[in-house]
């Protein structure tokens, strides 16, 4: 049987890239990413000009643009942190988002062939997920795989995939303490699998190489308050991932992890990271049980409704750990308000994320 071509989705997908440096890395991605529209979110000093390689179609937003577009609501977008990328999710008008860091290069598979990461993400996101029962041969919708004996037939159609979480060769995404203990460790293991993270299981979502269906889960992809003036950093994608997973589990949507790999080229400074993560390391001991126990009401049928409910629970249960969570809870609400303002529902459209 001929393998069907993976659709490009070039008019349905935006690529969101946060940057303070430059975008030279796009040169090596050109064969794979040039057909797509880019949304560049420039962090840091807005007077600095970012050079983008020729031939890419893009829109660029710096802090001044964010302030202008959101007005007072701009307070929910982090400053001097790559968490600002979620502004790009908000202004996009497309169905899918692929976000990638500017130190992520094209990786090679074990045969030496370059990996078209976006193509794999698209395959992941266009095929169903299977969160209700674990398939020991991983993603049954991949070529050459299937459901194993004992997998209930009623669960084989799967559910829509909201998130495709890719991985990284070379510099692994370790926290600061682990980086300090193992500064030379590199991820050299190519694991040829994609799998659905089971319902009820949380995971650490990394924003370096990530694709999601904006229509299904976009409003939950808020990357929190990090960076300038904030007590923590490097928890933006983590926070988004925990909120996203709770909401996906509630709405019957799937989250996949595994392929594709990118080549993570730059090791960040572990001492700088430790300063950023320090409070997060303690706080996550309370945050994780919070998310593990979080339940959403039957009335929460859209992503926005789920997110607002979650924000109230954050205030109520995490507010006592630190006033930061009070502020974060308010920012979560502001984010939803801003999202709805920039993305008014079309007249005949069903609320997004509604699934039953």
């Amino acid at each position, binding site marked *: 049987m001929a393998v069907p071509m993976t659709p490009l989705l070039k008019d349905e997908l935006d690529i969101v890239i946060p940057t303070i440096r430059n975008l030279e890395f796009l040169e090596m991605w050109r064969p794979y990413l040039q057909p797509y529209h880019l949304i560049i979110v420039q962090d840091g000093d807005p007077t600095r000009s970012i050079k983008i390689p020729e031939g890419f179609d893009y829109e660029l937003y710096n802090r001044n643009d964010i302030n202008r577009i959101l007005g007072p609501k701009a307070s929910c977008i982090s400053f001097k942190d790559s968490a600002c990328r979620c502004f790009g999710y908000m202004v996009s008008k497309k169905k899918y988002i692929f976000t990638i860091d500017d130190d992520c290069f094209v990786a090679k598979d074990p045969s030496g062939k370059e990996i078209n990461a976006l193509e794999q993400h698209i395959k992941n996101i266009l095929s169903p997920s299977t969160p209700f029962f674990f398939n020991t041969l991983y993603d049954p919708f991949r070529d050459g795989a299937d459901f194993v004996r004992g997998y209930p037939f009623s669960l084989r159609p799967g559910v829509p995939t909201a998130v495709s979480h890719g991985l990284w060769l070379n510099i692994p995404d370790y926290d600061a303490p682990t980086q300090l203990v193992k500064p030379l460790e590199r991820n050299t293991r190519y694991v040829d699998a994609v799998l659905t993270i089971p319902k*009820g299981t949380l995971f650490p979502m990394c924003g370096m190489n990530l694709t999601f269906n904006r229509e299904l889960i976009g409003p939950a992809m808020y990357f929190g308050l990090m960076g300038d003036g904030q007590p923590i950093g490097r928890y933006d994608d983590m926070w988004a991932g925990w909120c996203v997973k709770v909401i996906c589990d509630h709405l019957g949507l799937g989250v996949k992890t595994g392929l594709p790999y990118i080549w993570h080229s730059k090791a960040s400074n572990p001492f700088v990271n430790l300063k950023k*993560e320090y409070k997060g390391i303690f706080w996550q001991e309370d945050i994780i049980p919070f998310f593990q126990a979080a339940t959403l009401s039957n009335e929460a049928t859209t992503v926005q409704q789920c997110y607002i409910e979650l924000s109230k629970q954050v205030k109520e249960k995490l507010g006592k750990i630190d006033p930061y969570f009070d502020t974060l809870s308010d920012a979560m609400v502001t984010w939803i308000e801003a999202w709805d303002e920039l993305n008014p529902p079309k007249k005949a459209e069903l609320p997004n994320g509604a699934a039953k």
Partner: protein
Amino acid sequence: MSHPIIKDDEVDIVVAAIQPDLTSFMEEWRPIFCRFHLIIVKDPDLQKELIIPEGFNMDLYTKSDMDRVSTSILFTGYSCRYFGYLVSKKKYIVAVDDDCIPAKDGKGFLFDVVAQHISNLRLPATPFFFNTLYDPFQKGADFVRGYPFSLRNGVKCAISCGLWLNLADYDAPTQALKPGERNARYVDAVLTVPLKAMMPLSGINVAFNREVIGPALFPGLHLAGEGKQRWETVEDIWCGMCAKLVCDHLGLGVKSGVPYVWRNDRGDAIETLKKEWLGMKLMEEVVPFFQSVRLPRTAVVAEDCVLEIAAMVKEKLGPVDPLFGQAADAMVEWVRLWKAVESASPTPGA
């Protein structure tokens, strides 16, 4: 952090002989199995004499041994290996079907299935939070950013489920629809199956800590007209789902992934389709049941958990199909047998 070393004499290799001539099977496995004690259990339905090559440290069990121990438990077909689990005096068991041979890497070297299973059982499992780099205790891997520190010690791994190259463990309809499909993808990972996630635990290539989970791996669900092909059985799937419940309740881990075995082509999926695939129908009934099972705090060992599950199966699934009622009875009898065998000759070095 050091994890306990597992010695060769703590391991039994259990093989169910469904076919009489084990010569090529044993010779293929000799480089890997020769260090260990083997328990070979002959399918009681098999009439012919077994042919087993020399030079192995082994014990053979046949119908007469099984009849002496129990006449109510069905040890026929693939279920005969449970007898091997029962009589083993070792702490760890590795079981491989007799149509499997060692898989080879790209350079022709054998993957050491036993060593990998032992490594999986030796290193902790991490069921409470998913690690995106898979088993963090493997060399070259670790916990990723965002993984809570309090969960990094992990828990004891009770079961290691391996996989299969060539003939994958598909059900008959799936294999019949794709008669030429063979599993050629070697996924270089082992991962912990998260808490509360249900999974199909294949008995083709499995290892476990007999001491903590032995009683939960039992011959329970026997299909009428069950044949000698894996497509025609769900006994391992059934006890596997129970065993996962028990592990979740007792705070033990279940891993899935490497090692791979090479599973030889055997049988005809389309032929099997002609038989009623009752097993798959039954699986549909059990999912809501397993999702709802809650074990009491008082059940602190595997035996107690199995008895609790058996009672619930009898009550809730018994009315759905008499096979479930029989499975529940078999589970109770199995625990009784297990306790009897254990008290007669307790496992040394506990």
